[in-house]
């Protein structure tokens, strides 16, 4: 499809040019740290909600889930349910309280009533760890996507494209800061949801708007899976271990979202907690709607493209949605959907980069190295910009190295780290009076180490043909996803660390609770 490659590049070029113009326009008013790191807190709830959907619906959600449903049927659908239900944790327990007590980063909230420097260092460490795994997944996905859409199959050619994606992302973040990045997310989310929506209606129209007919056609076109395509178990139902693995994954998905630093940081871009609530509500409706679309797209790809053709394509499962686009609307729709998929990767990578660089500049540089003296100064923004360049280069190199790795595995890893290292500390910090510095450090570092250790010892890394190192054999832990062990361990460590330390600042908790629930003294929007 070399003729189509030019079309694909052309459509993508238009997207990049249009978003760069928006980013440059948005950057005109970016002056202070609050402008650069939190977009002046001036976005409305609905705008931020769309941007959250843009940040959350990564390539793993779009290409990954549609492909998983096309090949594994119902088991792919289970991912979307975990990803969606997870938002209730953010809505009910985290978003508003976080908005009221923090400023730019997750570290602001976690260190509020603790000893600042050690807790900020821990929060920054886990922010970087989660962002890095998530970045790797997106960059690795870019490589596979390129193979499919541009017909570039050589590793060198793919590496060049990964480098171009990385360089564009650095440009967005440097020029536009949080404001520019947010606009990129909004544009991308609108394109993605409209694109998926049009394809969904198109597929349904082909089957006379009859979901049952579509499911039947999918079963007929997938003789190997047959009826099993419609019920759970095709992917995870083979043995006791895989069933347990699925339970573990489900836990990491539902508890991970509210601990993802790049999602948490989005709550600081709105002026009040009430707007933060509105933004989560918008995000939940949009994300839910999108996952309903992917259900139709996945079964549509099974019915109209077929598992054999999907498996034979360069990106395997990840190519199901683009192939469906081609089957429906020919090269033009394929080009549009391909551009949207690229835009998705670009936007998510930019969001992750600004989060990781903000955490370094605000938590480590301004508050640990400069002991708070550099906070809100120009140097904080300067450090954030420089860190973005470093992170960009590291993620380009990591993406090239991880090219070809399983995207869903890397994303599930990021969720497991977020659910284990971040969520327990966030919840304890907001709701448990007795919680203290020692508990926070035990939970963050303990959760992080246990999660990473179990992943290193898992069959995802060694011992199986599909592993990262198929020839080595140190898979002592049987599950690919560590959540079912690491999440309870992190909660337990947070409890033990707390009760074994005498530190307890009741006054500081009183201040935090009053601020969290009422919004007294919360950071306000900057007026220009």
């Amino acid at each position: 499809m070399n003729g189509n490659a030019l079309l694909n590049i052309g459509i993508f070029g238009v997207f990049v040019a249009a978003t760069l113009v928006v980013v440059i326009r948005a950057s005109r008013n970016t002056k202070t740290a609050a402008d650069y790191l939190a977009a002046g807190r001036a976005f409305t709830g609905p705008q931020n909600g769309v941007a959250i959907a843009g940040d959350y619906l990564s390539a793993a959600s779009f290409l990954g889930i549609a492909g998983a449903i096309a090949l594994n049927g119902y088991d792919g659908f289970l991912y979307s349910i975990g990803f969606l239900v997870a938002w209730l944790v953010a809505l009910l327990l985290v978003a508003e309280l976080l908005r009221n007590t923090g400023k730019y980063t997750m570290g602001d909230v976690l260190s509020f009533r603790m000893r600042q420097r050690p807790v900020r260092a821990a929060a920054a460490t886990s922010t970087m760890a989660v962002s890095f795994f998530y970045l790797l997944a997106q960059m690795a996905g870019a490589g596979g996507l390129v193979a499919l859409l541009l017909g570039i199959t050589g590793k060198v050619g793919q590496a060049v494209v990964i480098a171009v994606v990385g360089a564009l992302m650095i440009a967005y973040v440097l020029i536009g800061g949080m404001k520019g990045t947010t606009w990129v997310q909004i544009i991308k989310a609108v394109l993605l949801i409209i694109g998926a929506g049009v394809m969904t209606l198109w597929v349904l129209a082909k089957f006379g708007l009859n979901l049952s007919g579509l499911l039947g056609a999918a079963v007929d076109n997938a003789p190997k899976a047959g009826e099993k395509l419609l019920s759970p178990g095709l992917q995870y139902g083979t043995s006791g271990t895989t069933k347990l693995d699925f339970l573990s994954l489900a836990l990491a998905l539902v508890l991970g979202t509210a601990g993802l630093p790049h999602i948490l940081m989005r709550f600081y871009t709105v002026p009040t907690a009430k707007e933060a609530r509105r933004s989560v509500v918008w995000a939940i409706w949009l994300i839910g709607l999108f996952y309903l679309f992917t259900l139709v797209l996945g079964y549509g790809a099974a019915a109209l493209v077929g598992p054999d053709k999907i498996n034979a394509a360069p990106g395997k499962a990840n190519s199901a949605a683009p192939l469906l686009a081609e089957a429906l609307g020919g090269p033009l729709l394929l080009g549009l959907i391909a551009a949207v998929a690229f835009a998705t990767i670009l936007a998510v990578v930019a969001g992750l980069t600004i989060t990781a660089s903000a955490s370094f500049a605000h938590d480590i540089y301004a508050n640990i190295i400069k002991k708070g003296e550099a906070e809100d100064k120009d140097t904080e923004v300067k450090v954030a910009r420089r860190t973005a360049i470093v992170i960009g280069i590291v993620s380009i190199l990591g993406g090239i190295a991880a090219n070809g790795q399983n995207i869903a595995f890397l994303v599930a890893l990021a969720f497991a780290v977020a659910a284990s290292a971040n969520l327990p500390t966030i919840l304890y910090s907001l709701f448990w009076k007795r919680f203290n510095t020692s508990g926070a450090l035990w939970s963050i570092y303990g959760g992080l180490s246990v999660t990473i250790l179990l992943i290193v010892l898992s069959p995802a890394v060694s011992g199986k043909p599909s592993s990262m190192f198929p020839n080595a054999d140190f898979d002592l832990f049987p599950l690919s996803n560590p959540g079912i062990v690491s999440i309870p361990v992190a909660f337990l460590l947070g409890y033990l660390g707390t009760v074994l330390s005498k530190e307890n600042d009741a006054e500081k908790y009183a201040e935090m609770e009053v601020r969290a629930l009422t919004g007294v003294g919360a950071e306000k929007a900057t007026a220009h």
Partner: protein
Amino acid sequence: MSTAENTSGPTPSDSAGQNWVEVQSSPDFVELRSRLRKFVFPMAGLFLAWYLLYVVLADYAHDFMATKVVGNINVGLILGLLQFVSTFAITTLYVRHANKNLDPTAEKIRAELEGGRS
């Protein structure tokens, strides 16, 4: 920047002069916290239990989930779609609760504490 007061942010320095413990034990605040917790904790328990029930059924009760109800639509698909419905429903219920029962009290306390400030 809009105002001079908020440039320092939530650091210990600008909490000086405010007796937070007193505010925390005031009847208004105790009522606000109780209304928040009485809603979000049971609701969080409920949706997590319902989600886990669904996951366990999908994981261990394949035959039950494969039972056809209408055409090719089976119990698994219906329960899965009900997860979407319950998520949307809880979202709507929470917003209604927060707008009606939480925001007015929170605004009242905030206005008292911030005094003449906006």
